[in-house]
């Protein structure tokens, strides 16, 4: 293993809290991040599903897009970057988006919110510098692109998340899935969305750095809330069938191949009122109409051996079909689970495939996603 120069890693504003909680710190996307706490990945995962988990996701990029003149011009320009309905997003609502390449690949996936007089965007940590440059290149005529560098981002997820957050921020219980609201609080003004990346109901909370430690401590002191590291964040999102950028989606996968067609609203598709007009439209619209050659699928290994990222997949007759892009053990499923790309001809749930684990071909079955039902408060 190569030595990592940990001094190059950026520190989260809550670094000392993670260390004091016994967090095992590892490098991730240029940050020194807690991968787990003493409870361990399995317990942290199951606790999030049964109670509530607090995640520090401050490594992610928070960006404000502020129109230079009117919102409509910003909305139109932002919509031209994605195969997604931006103009139809009501004030106080958030939506999942995808920056696409000219060939229909995915530059990043993101969340964006309509906050009345501006848009608020949250992007992946590893992509944030490139995303900011990409947005500046496309939006500088109509908006200022303002990275938010003085706020932490916390996620509170699980069935007790609503009660725990409401104890400190009255009013959050009224929010529905993908609502966004600003709340004044003892921790400073909070930008809260009812969302997350675990498949559970929950919230993401943007908090001024000055109030972040107090908010995190307050939530951790609330009944049912436990700190959760990156390890469980990954197993939770995998069980929920959610993509990890860099693993399950990247510039070589299109939104259609990735099974993210739900993120492409009718208005942007062929025959829609604002059809096309985004990078890669030709390929993406063609795939929407004719089907892609390959698809992201859920995979259930039929033995106890996990099939990790990179596991090659075959038809039982030996024909190569694709590979696993995320795989491991699902603590709630109590079995190994995986996602990967296979030829469209073999993407139907129930199809029997084989995955090569340490030189041996093992049975694996295509299965619908998610592996664990989601519990969003719609």
């Amino acid at each position, binding site marked *: 293993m190569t030595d990592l120069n940990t001094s190059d890693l950026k520190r989260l504003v809550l670094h000392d809290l993670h260390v004091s909680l016994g967090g095992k710190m590892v490098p991730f996307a240029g940050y020194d991040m807690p991968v*787990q706490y003493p409870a361990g990945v399995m317990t942290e995962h199951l606790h999030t599903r049964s109670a509530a988990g607090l995640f520090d996701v401050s490594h992610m990029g928070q960006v404000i897009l502020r129109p230079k003149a009117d919102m409509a011009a910003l909305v139109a320009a932002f919509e031209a970057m994605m195969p997604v309905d931006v103009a139809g997003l009501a004030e106080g609502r958030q939506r999942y988006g995808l920056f696409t390449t000219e060939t229909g690949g995915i530059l990043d996936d993101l969340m964006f919110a309509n906050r009345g007089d501006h848009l608020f965007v949250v992007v992946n940590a590893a992509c944030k510098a490139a995303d900011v440059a990409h947005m500046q290149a496309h939006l500088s005529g109509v908006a200022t692109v303002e990275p938010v560098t003085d706020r932490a981002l916390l996620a509170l997820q699980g069935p007790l998340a609503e009660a725990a957050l409401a104890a400190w921020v009255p009013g959050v219980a009224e929010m529905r899935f993908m609502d966004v609201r600003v709340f004044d609080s003892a921790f400073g003004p909070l930008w809260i969305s009812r969302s997350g990346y675990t498949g559970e109901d929950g919230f993401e909370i943007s908090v001024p750095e000055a109030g972040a430690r107090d908010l995190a401590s307050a939530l951790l002191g609330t009944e049912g809330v436990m700190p959760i590291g990156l390890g469980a964040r990954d197993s939770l999102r995998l069980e929920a069938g959610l993509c990890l950028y860099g693993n399950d989606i990247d510039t070589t996968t299109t939104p259609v191949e990735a099974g993210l067609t739900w993120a492409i609203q009718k208005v942007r598709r062929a025959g829609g009122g604002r059809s096309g007009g985004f990078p890669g439209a030709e390929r993406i619209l063609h795939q929407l109409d004719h089907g892609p050659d390959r698809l992201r699928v859920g995979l259930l290994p039929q033995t106890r051996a996990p099939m990790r990222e990179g596991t090659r997949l075959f038809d039982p007759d030996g024909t190569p079909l694709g590979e696993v892009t995320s795989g491991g*053990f699902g603590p709630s499923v109590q079995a*190994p689970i995986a996602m990967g790309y296979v030829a469209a001809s073999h993407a139907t749930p129930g199809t029997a495939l084989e995955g090569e684990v340490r030189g041996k071909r093992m049975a694996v079955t295509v299965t619908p996603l998610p592996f664990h039902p989601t519990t969003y408060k719609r």
Partner: protein
Amino acid sequence: MKYTKEHEWMRVEGDLVVVGITEHAATQLGDVVFVELPETETMVAEGDEVCVIESVKAASDILAPLDGEIVEVNVKLVDKPALVNEDPTGEAWFFKMKIDDLAALDDYMDEDEYADFIG
């Protein structure tokens, strides 16, 4: 007990050497969810990858600490991988080896040396 730098322990039982992983290794691995054991009656050389352990986080190997023959494996681990976390130095032994000369163990760390090694 003797210890390797790969965080395995070895205990002499009659003319056999019992091999497992240390508490430190089990803690570092996290929750073990899968164990693949070697075939019995296999000749192995020191450093050969003989078992696979998968935790929620990652896969790792157990290496043969000595030259010899695998004569028995702990099949209980296949059905209950979590034993590796619950009782790494007791019930969760991985395999037993027959080796030519038990003196080969003398080269390995004792308990105090291993404690220093893991700091």
